[in-house]
């Protein structure tokens, strides 16, 4: 059973990517994911950022709430970390305050990665991420496209996703990554205090899977470029569901919390079994099956 897939020009041996923000701070951490079709780096920017104080993670019944605050050592320092890394494929996640900064970071990281993922969706980082204005998306994507010669993906959150995806496509994006965590909050009622130091964070895990599936399904109507599905994937069945909705590949993040890093190897095996049992010759035949 063939698990090979491609997202635009990026070919992968399986459709499972490690999502940005999970165990991708250091080379050693990332090299634990050699079974993944690709890994996406921590989001990096021009300068060093310490991120928010603790608590930065809240464990909830059906997922995780986090507000890390884009901690990263800055692209120059991070390059030392990832140069020569031994993984299947590596996608460099970047953030920036405007098109110039996005283009500069992209240009710097290009030498060490196979594709770029523009983070325009972190739900709790002010004007970075989801706060990046919709009317500036197209310009930012074209600026990045002009500065590099590798595929450029744009990661979007659920808010306004149709309009933002169209803008990314206009700018020349090679794929849309949907969705990021969902803006959320958790309050401790014993002390009447919001738990996260940033108060607001992003919700991930099984609870948001139906939202992600809906976004991917609707997006494949909105845009002609490929879509990478993310949000609450913990099993092979979840992967199939996202791909039937129209995703060409998927990303797994919080799933690592539930099943450990072996989740990639295990889901690959489960996917092969599922395809065989359901008489699909290859994973590519599943893409968009629910849209027929």
């Amino acid at each position, binding site marked *: 059973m063939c698990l090979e897939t491609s997202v635009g020009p990026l070919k992968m041996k399986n459709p499972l990517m490690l999502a940005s*923000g*999970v*165990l*991708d*701070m*250091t*080379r*050693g*951490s990332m*090299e*634990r994911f050699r079974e993944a079709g690709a890994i996406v780096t*921590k989001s990096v920017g021009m300068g*060093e*950022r*310490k*991120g928010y*104080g*603790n*608590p*930065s*993670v*809240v*464990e*909830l*019944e059906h997922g*995780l709430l*986090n507000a*890390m605050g884009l*901690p*990263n*050592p*800055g692209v120059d*320092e*991070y390059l030392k*970390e990832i140069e020569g890394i031994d993984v299947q494929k590596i996608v460099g996640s970047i953030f920036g305050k405007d098109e110039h900064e996005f283009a500069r970071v992209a240009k710097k990281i290009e030498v060490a990665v196979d594709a770029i993922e523009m983070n325009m969706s972190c739900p709790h980082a002010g004007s970075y991420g989801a706060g990046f204005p919709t009317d500036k998306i197209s310009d930012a994507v074209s600026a990045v496209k002009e500065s590099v010669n590798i595929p450029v993906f744009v990661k979007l959150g659920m808010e306004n996703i149709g309009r933002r995806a169209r803008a990314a496509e206009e700018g020349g994006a090679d794929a849309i990554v949907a969705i990021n965590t969902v803006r959320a909050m958790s309050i*401790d009622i*014993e*002390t009447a*205090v919001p*738990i996260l*130091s940033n108060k607001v964070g992003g919700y991930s895990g099984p609870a948001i899977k139906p939202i992600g599936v809906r976004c991917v399904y609707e997006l494949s109507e909105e845009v002609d470029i490929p879509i990478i599905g993310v949000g609450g994937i913990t099993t092979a069945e979840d992967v199939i569901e996202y791909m039937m909705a129209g995703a060409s590949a998927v990303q797994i*993040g*919080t799933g*690592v*919390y539930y099943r*450990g890093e072996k989740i990639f190897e295990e889901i690959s095996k489960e996917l092969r079994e599922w395809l065989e049992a359901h008489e699909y010759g290859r994973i590519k035949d599943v893409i968009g099956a629910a849209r027929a």
Partner: protein
Amino acid sequence: MPMRVHAIEKVVENTPIHKTFYFNDRECRNAEPGQFIMVWIPGVDEMPMSLSVIGKQQAVTVEAKGEGTKKMHEMKEGDKIGIRGPYGKGFSLSGEKKLFVAGGTGIAPLMPLIKMSGGKKTVILGARSSHLLLFEEELKSMDVELHISTDDGSEGHKGFVTDLLEEMADADKKFDVAYACGPEIMMRKVLDFCLENSIPMEASLERYMKCGIGICGSCAIDGYHVCRDGPVFESSILSKIEDFGRWKRDESGKKVEI
């Protein structure tokens, strides 16, 4: 594991810079010695702390060092803290003749281990000065051979705990296993000593931590994560970790010298 919020049941002042905070959390009752919890000080900070007491009541022993731990020192019986965990891999109980090497606050996670383990126990306890020796009285009342070392010589050996290791090697003491916790430079020296003398060894490591549950990667040390692969690592792994005793990472993930 979701967070539980508990009232502090008792606060004990151990030294001018150490306090022990007792609470009662069902999940922590059967924790392994060496495991840690994430302690939330509402509205202030959340920090990883090893359990220094395990049983019907549990506790963490805190050195007032940074903003969060200083705030914690202001907390009284009845004040509320949040707890996640216990997390990580603790110490393994093995061997007959055991050596425990502790520097400063490093004695805290070793205390439940010393209490739970049998056999012949030798403890080397070090601190900067006599009045900062943590759990000294408690150790004296236990069935252990206690050696003291202070940097300023105000009590016991003047110098470092690792000097005493050499003396013990000369005295030809044979240990089946060694456990260490304290400053990383100290633990590195204990590791080197144990490798030279073929003694299996375990050490509890500390790194800046955010999630505590193996997803954010802040506490990475080479390819290992202190929160999930540790905090206790055995010598066969420690000897392969290049960062050990040399490098740690700051909040941004940048490598800095220890």
